[in-house]
């Protein structure tokens, strides 16, 4: 008997029991049509779209950071990345609100440029980027570190800058790693509640006018937004899990492939 294996499986089962119970009740005894209305699916749709956009931005903006950390030795930048992770999430929502408030000079400037975070898709995406980027970097960095650096050093000797090396040598060879890290970041963004419940409780833009992100919708149902809301919240949660699970699983599938 392999005790390490047995203990590990038991621990992971403990971790997953609440989710399994929720799925059972949400789809079974507590199933409520109010949990899978068009409005609920619209809100899951908003979460999926905003999280996908956030993951794309993570890719564009933070792939270089992950590569820089993998090949450089910059303890300061490395620890700066952990700051958003260590702060309670609602504080990030408040921070974004202050940054873009008509009461502050930064906010006045951003609003003058037409950049408004409060109850906008933009604000929602920005909050999701802040919350998922550290996860993206942490997934990408070890992937880059495990790469043999010889081809990159060869390219640099031929005259390629670090950035050029990343784009021309490393990225074409890292598709599975990038896809995996992006999906992991996206599933992190799908799960976000704290920050977006403050900055984007609902959004007021086409094509999601008046729609709340899924986690916020579930919270509202739970709080009794409609009669019998608890059952609706459990059912909507189960629906949300069914959407989020394949994304997480796909992320790990690609991570295995990338090794």
């Amino acid at each position, binding site marked *: 008997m392999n005790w390490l294996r047995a203990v590990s499986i038991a621990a992971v089962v403990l971790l997953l029991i609440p989710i399994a119970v929720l799925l059972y009740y949400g789809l079974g005894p507590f199933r409520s049509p109010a949990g899978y209305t068009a409005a609920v699916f619209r809100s899951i749709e908003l979460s999926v779209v905003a999280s996908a956009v956030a993951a794309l931005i993570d890719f564009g903006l933070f792939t270089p950071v992950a590569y820089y950390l993998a090949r450089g030795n910059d303890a300061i930048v490395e620890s700066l990345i952990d700051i958003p992770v260590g702060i309670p999430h609602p504080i990030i929502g408040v921070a974004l609100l202050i940054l873009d408030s008509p009461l502050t000079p930064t906010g006045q400037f951003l609003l003058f440029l037409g950049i408004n975070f409060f109850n906008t898709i933009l604000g929602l995406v920005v909050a999701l980027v802040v919350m998922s980027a550290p996860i993206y970097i942490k997934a990408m960095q070890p992937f880059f570190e495990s790469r*043999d650096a*010889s*081809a990159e*050093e*060869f*390219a*640099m*000797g*031929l*005259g*390629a*800058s*670090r950035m*050029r090396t990343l784009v021309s*040598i490393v990225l*074409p*060879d890292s598709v599975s790693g990038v896809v995996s890290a992006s999906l992991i970041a996206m599933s992190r963004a799908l799960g976000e509640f704290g920050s977006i419940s403050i900055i984007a409780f609902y959004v007021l833009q086409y094509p999601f006018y008046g729609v709340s992100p899924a986690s916020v919708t579930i919270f509202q149902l739970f709080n009794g937004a409609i009669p019998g809301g608890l059952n609706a919240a459990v059912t909507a949660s189960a629906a949300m899990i069914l959407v989020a699970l394949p994304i997480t699983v796909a992320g790990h599938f690609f991570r295995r492939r990338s090794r």
Partner: protein
Amino acid sequence: MIEARLRAHAGHFRLAAQVNCSGVTCVAGRNGAGKTTLLRAMAGFLKLDEGHVIVGGLDVTRLPVEKRGVVLVTPGSAIQHLDVDSHLIWGRKLVGKRIQEDQVSKVKSELGIDFGGRVGKLSLGMRERVSLATALLAEPKAILVDEAFASLHDREEFIMAYGRLLVGARIDLVFSSQVASDGKLGDNLYLIDEGVTTRSN
């Protein structure tokens, strides 16, 4: 001409080297003698404790790797996702030099590159050929070869042919070897032991 007088360290290993390499130079020593460390220091991948590296009369000690005109070729150098023909001209295109088809085909035939396809799917020896030819076609000031001749079936003939092509293009070559007898393949021979170089001819 690539000239290095330097002290550097990698972990506990200490390097104290003094080499003048023009034409084809062999650096020979046992495993762990410091061959790789020396070549990496010359290419700019290792911070020097003191000393300098001068390439073609220009002090490159403080220049980043990509500005030195020195290419380090190892068995892992090949860019896996390219096909052979785009790999060969990759370095030359990067520095904006014109690509001459006859030059490419001459290098291919001299270095035994009679195959194509995706580089990542080739054997180690084939990848080494492609990397070495790519470095040559880019015409840097110097090429440093660390172990990248090791998997070639016609190793000695290849080094001679490669050396001839490099002399024609006025590129200096420094290559590492386990055995001092490889000195006969080049113009200069340095022995290295416990990080210290001595000239042998």
